[in-house]
């Protein structure tokens, strides 16, 4: 496994909740200040990347071996559990909306959970390899999407661009929690597992910048096509945007194809957070890779049942990630002082 495999996952993480969860909330709160807000948030997000790269440098056997404290590890594992339950539920709703209107959500959750189980029962490497393999198709589809959307751009929709720094800083938690924080899950990968581990920090930082540029470009695209006001009322603006595509009255109703990338994003994010839980259980019970199927099965069942029966709000996600980040931050400070 190389640092490229690791950094490609950052791109997936960045895109996952951009259209669906982030954009609607950000535009509702910031309206025409959105672009300055995005720049401020990206700048503030670098602090999380610095925290990540510092911890990754000292991460010889994975985050759990580094922390050692069992209570801390259990607290840390709650965040990905809540997050994966939330994401699976969200992904099933999204798939319901775009593909399977009349099918019960439970069927979609079970279908996703089966693939999740298959991915979990293999080792961490297979996750990173599959994410890299799919990345080629992912990029191809992204380019097609952008090309199809270019004729619908109206620059006037972006205007006026206003600047309110206080409001931007106050709401930057949205970007930091939804888009950047899940990158911390990558700490489950031990440094020793990566062949060119010296470059990992740099590559993650570079991918963060590339991911941010993609987000800025996508924001430009979606706002110039739909406008601020329309964006604030739609839950899935990407689908509404793709529904506009109608080239020469022949190429239309392509949203079902273009939305495939969103599902890939959802799936990899669920897999990454589930892998985090799996590695945590592995370390806590000192399983050393044994009983992989049993542990994967238990995690899959937990997430599946959770997404069917539990109702997790966005507030729960924000709180759990705050605790998650604070633990990492204090640990980093503790290490520096020590």
């Amino acid at each position, binding site marked *: 496994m190389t640092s490229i495999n690791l950094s490609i996952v950052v791109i997936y993480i960045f895109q996952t909740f951009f259209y669906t969860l982030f954009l609607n909330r950000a535009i509702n709160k910031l309206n025409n200040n959105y672009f300055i807000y995005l720049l401020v948030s990206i700048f503030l997000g670098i602090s999380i990347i610095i925290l990540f790269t510092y911890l990754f440098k000292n991460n010889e056997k994975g985050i759990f071996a580094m922390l050692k404290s069992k209570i801390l590890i259990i607290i840390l594992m709650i965040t990905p559990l809540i997050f994966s339950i939330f994401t699976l539920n969200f992904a099933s709703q999204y798939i319901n909306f775009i593909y*399977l*209107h009349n099918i019960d959500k439970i*069927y979609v959750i079970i*279908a996703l959970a*089966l693939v999740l189980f298959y991915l979990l029962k293999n080792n961490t490497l297979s996750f990173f390899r599959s994410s890299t393999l799919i990345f080629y198709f992912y990029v191809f589809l992204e380019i097609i999407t952008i090309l199809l959307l270019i004729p619908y751009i109206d620059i006037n929709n972006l*205007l006026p661009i*206003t600047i309110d720094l206080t409001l931007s800083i106050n709401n930057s938690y949205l970007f930091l929690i939804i888009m950047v924080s899940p990158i911390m899950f990558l700490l489950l990968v031990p440094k020793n597992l990566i062949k060119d581990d010296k470059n990992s920090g740099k590559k993650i930082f570079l991918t963060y910048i590339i991911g941010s540029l993609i987000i800025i470009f996508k924001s430009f695209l979606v706002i110039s096509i739909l*406008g601020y*006001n*329309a964006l604030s009322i739609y839950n899935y603006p990407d689908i509404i945007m793709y529904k506009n595509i109608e080239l020469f009255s022949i190429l239309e109703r392509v949203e079902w194809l273009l939305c495939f990338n969103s599902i890939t994003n959802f799936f990899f994010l669920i897999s990454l957070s589930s892998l985090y839980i799996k590695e945590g259980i592995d370390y806590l019970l000192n399983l050393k890779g044994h009983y992989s199927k049993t542990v994967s099965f238990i995690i899959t069942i937990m997430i599946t049942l959770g997404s069917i029966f539990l109702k997790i709000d966005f507030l729960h996600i924000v709180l759990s990630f705050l605790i998650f980040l604070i633990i990492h931050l204090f640990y980093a400070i503790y290490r520096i002082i020590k």
Partner: protein
Amino acid sequence: MLKKKIFIFLILLITVFPLSGCNNYQELNNVMIIDGIGIDKKDDEYIVSFNTYNQNNKYETYKITTSNINDSFNKIYLKVSKKIYLSHLNILALSSNLDNLDIENIINAFNRRQDLRGSFNVVLIHNYEDNFFKNDSLKIKDILHNNYLEKGNVYPTTFNDLINDYLDLNIAYIPIIDNKTNTLMGMHSLFSEFNFYDLTNSSFLNLLENKLETLTLTIDEDEVNCNNTEVKYLVDKNNVKININFSYNANVNKNKIISYIDSNINNFLSNDYNLNYFYDLIKKKDYLFYKDNPKPNIIFDITYNLSKEEINNIKDGDLIEENDKY
């Protein structure tokens, strides 16, 4: 190895049923493809007419009386016991009996439908009757589009346009059709106040708001076809410079055309025209000024740039005026 193969086979088998929709598949005969929807209001109740075609290729209209638009989709399902499919909707016809609140309710109800695409046309119907859809709604769509392409009196507003105008400008214009004579009457404004524009005024409304491609004017019994219509705006605080460009193909003096359009536009601007479109322009171009003066007294400066197209059946020098500047 065999166990693994059986396991993978089982996974695929279980996945195939929910993903292919085999558990609740729909035969085409059991799907009701809605072609047009008409909505009227009588005694505080909505009367929703669903136009569809049956198996004999004949059009049928089902009437539902309800207090809630969302509920009408459930009621029609109970009435015909077929799955409602709105993806091929062509026309949403609104009765002139509906008020602004009703139209907001309708927009909300339609926005919630997952199978709906926003590209269908919305029209207002004068003298609305329950048998409005005498045939397929494509004919109404054709009337709108033919007029837009050939005459340029009305703009065929789609549902997406309606939502965007409602959100951005708090006013939207939709074409109005008289049900008795089956003819286009002009454009009607929704949301902020109800205003009617006849065919001539709606041409100038659409021309001012840069929605037209072609425009046909009748000046002293001469028909002037204006093509490649393009309007450019230059905004400086409360001064709005409008530059109207088009090419025309008629043997009419250029100045005559300009003075005709100019007098009509000025007349149009001085009569109850809602300026939200231009306030929005000022907001976009000069936000600092707009912030202090959300509704400034706009000073319009309209210039015209006309170019004459060649007419093949007239010899050079016959009645052709020079392309002088106005």
